[in-house]
């Protein structure tokens, strides 16, 4: 299981989750067992998390995502990179994200 974030890699939501937008909230609904501490948990992403999640399409690398967000939010690269790595790391730990297949 991938647990360390690689900024050169592209990531994509796992097939074991369903992401739903409900009344402006992004709710992540686990499909498979063992993705949370209890078997009835759902998850939501905050605004920063949402902005990053929406760009995890399996094609753009995390570096690309960071660059894009720097422009959109006019924020320093270091700060954006920390947020991206933080979210991706958290989602990888929960198996909600996987590294995209290459080539």
């Amino acid at each position: 299981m991938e647990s360390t974030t690689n900024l050169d890699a592209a990531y994509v939501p796992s097939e074991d989750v369903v992401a739903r937008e409900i009344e402006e909230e992004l709710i992540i609904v686990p499909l498979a067992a063992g993705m949370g501490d209890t078997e009835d948990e759902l998850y939501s992403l905050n605004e920063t998390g949402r902005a990053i999640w929406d760009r995890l399409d399996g094609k753009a690398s995390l570096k690309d995502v960071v660059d894009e967000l720097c422009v959109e939010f006019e924020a320093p690269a270091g700060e954006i990179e920390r947020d991206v790595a933080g979210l991706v790391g958290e989602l990888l730990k929960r198996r909600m994200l996987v590294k995209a297949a290459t080539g």
Partner: protein
Amino acid sequence: MEDNTYVARLGGTNPPLWKSNSPLLGKLDLELTERCNNNCIHCSINRPADDRAAREKELSTGEIGDVLKEAVSLGCLTVRFTGGEPLLRDDFEELYLFARRRGLRVLLCTNATLITPHLAELFARIPPLEMVEITVYGMREESYEAVTRSPGSFEAAWQGMNLLLEKKVPFGVKGALLPANREEMEEFEAWASAIPWMDRPAPWAMFFNLRARRDSEEKNRLIRRLRLSAEEGLRMLTREPQEYRKAMVEFCSGFIGPPGDRLFTCGSGIGSGCVDAYGFFQPCLLLRHPDTVYDLRKGSLKDGLTRFFPEVRERRAKDPDYLNRCARCFLKGLCEHCPAKSWTEHGVLDRPVDYLCEIAHAQARYLGLLGADENAWEVRNWRERIESMDEQSDLVGVPLTESV
């Protein structure tokens, strides 16, 4: 795992906090079939498992899929699969996966007799995200099957529950209090409390509803004989007198009062509803009056929720007896009377139900809200009585009137 600043856990049955409005449809009840492999003596809905006419009228797999798709589009997060016995459907697994893959939590209500190793494994691998709800009818084959009238059902139910335990699939149980199992109450409660996911006492059904489709007066006569009287019900409700009184003081101070001629004072049809086995959308599971059901084969959940249900909820009582009693009665809220109960008991939406009236009055007398010969609909100073109830909460555990 700890929450970081990006990902928040939304645990348990608490709904997420929506930034703006709640979704149009938060929860949907879906009655997959009215058919059941049991034939419980007290059941308000069941049809035989091999009822061909019923089966042919049921929504198809595709039709249920369409309902679920629309429910998801309206923001629904939870669907309750109920019946009859929902596992009787040959396409249950397909419907379950369809719902889960669209990001729905599934609350399954079942008698557990049809839970197979394959299904238990499925629920372990792709969890429903809601506890499976199982009704248990007795602790022995003799008592259990005296209720279900289905030989072999006791062993099958226990096998089903053991499979869920083995696979660590969370489930909860509730009891149906009937003459055949009444002597087993304590045994049932002790057993239920040992189920790993039961974090509160197992609830009991005891004031059974009459037939939801008003299709059998013979069965209704049986149900009337089986359900607890007001006095017996009060004894059950007040088994823990301190807890009961504390809960009722809190409840009565906020949720009871005369409704006037408004019929619908509950939340039925607001953000929720029930689709019956044949495609009719109802404000709640029990209400099947022809004027209050919406044909989904000719419309949509959205139209039902935004146009039809609000019209239903606007209905006013006309029955003189209702207007004289229920409309003026401050026990509304404590009393379980509602249009659905009136429908099952009388075939109309606005008639008092004496059985429910007796139960509510018994509780009110126990709580000191009513004198022995008073009718609640004749009381004018009910607000003072409720406030006085608050002041007497220090006397928790001390009945203000003699216990029944």
